[in-house]
């Protein structure tokens, strides 16, 4: 059982939409550097590094130095069911909003195709 303060820190770490995307991208790749992650997200490498530091402090990611680069992995045991659920919910909403946008922009809503 984690202490309350620690749980709060964990929640705060995953509440941020960019960090949720970062975690998802990292889960998809298993392991990646800040530079690699920055190519997938609409943020700079510096911003990715900052977010990774927050995730690292919350114990959600693990950094491993490999020669000149630092590779990050998700610590799955820390990404508990609720966290995963929220991350998933957020990704779902992004998909749904993108579909709403496509429908609203491409068709006349009064004329379902």
């Amino acid at each position, binding site marked *: 059982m984690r202490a309350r303060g620690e749980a709060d820190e964990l*929640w705060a770490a995953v509440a941020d939409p960019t960090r949720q995307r970062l975690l998802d991208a990292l889960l998809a790749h298993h392991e990646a550097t800040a530079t690699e992650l920055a*190519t997938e997200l609409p943020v700079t490498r510096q911003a990715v590094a900052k977010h990774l530091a927050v995730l690292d402090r919350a114990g959600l990611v693990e950094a491993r130095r490999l020669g000149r680069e630092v590779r990050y992995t998700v610590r799955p045991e820390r990404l508990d069911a*609720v966290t995963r*659920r929220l991350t998933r919910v957020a990704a779902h*909403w992004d998909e*749904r*909003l993108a579909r*709403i946008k496509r429908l*609203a922009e491409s068709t006349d809503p009064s004329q379902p195709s």
Partner: protein
Amino acid sequence: MVPDRIEREILIDAPPDRVWAVVTEPEHVGRWFGDSAEIDLRPGGEATLTWEEHGSVRARVERVEPPHLFSFRWARPVGAEPREGNSTLVEFRLTAEGESTRLHVVESGFQELDRSEEEKAEYAEENTQGWKLELEDLREYVSALVR
């Protein structure tokens, strides 16, 4: 405070009336949320969201203030009647920005949902099964964003 909500937003190149129609009319909802939808569009009205693969999820309309605010509560698991403790609240807000519309969505109430151990176990299982597929979806989605 522990966050208990998901917030997302998107800027849509269409006026609020048009976005409102897509967000609230069953024939459109069935295209962005599930495979088909039935909605009694008034406060307290019943709604059903159907996924061919999973079944029908029941929802209850909470607020209908065209073209600015639409909210509903949807229940889990499939088939359950929405009530406190088994449902989350989804709230859409539409704001005009010039010729465009900012669509903001908040889903809240996950802490409530996770109250019972039985439910937690259920979600954990659901997550384990669903996670891999979700990641595939997400990967596609992210690459679409980058493109």
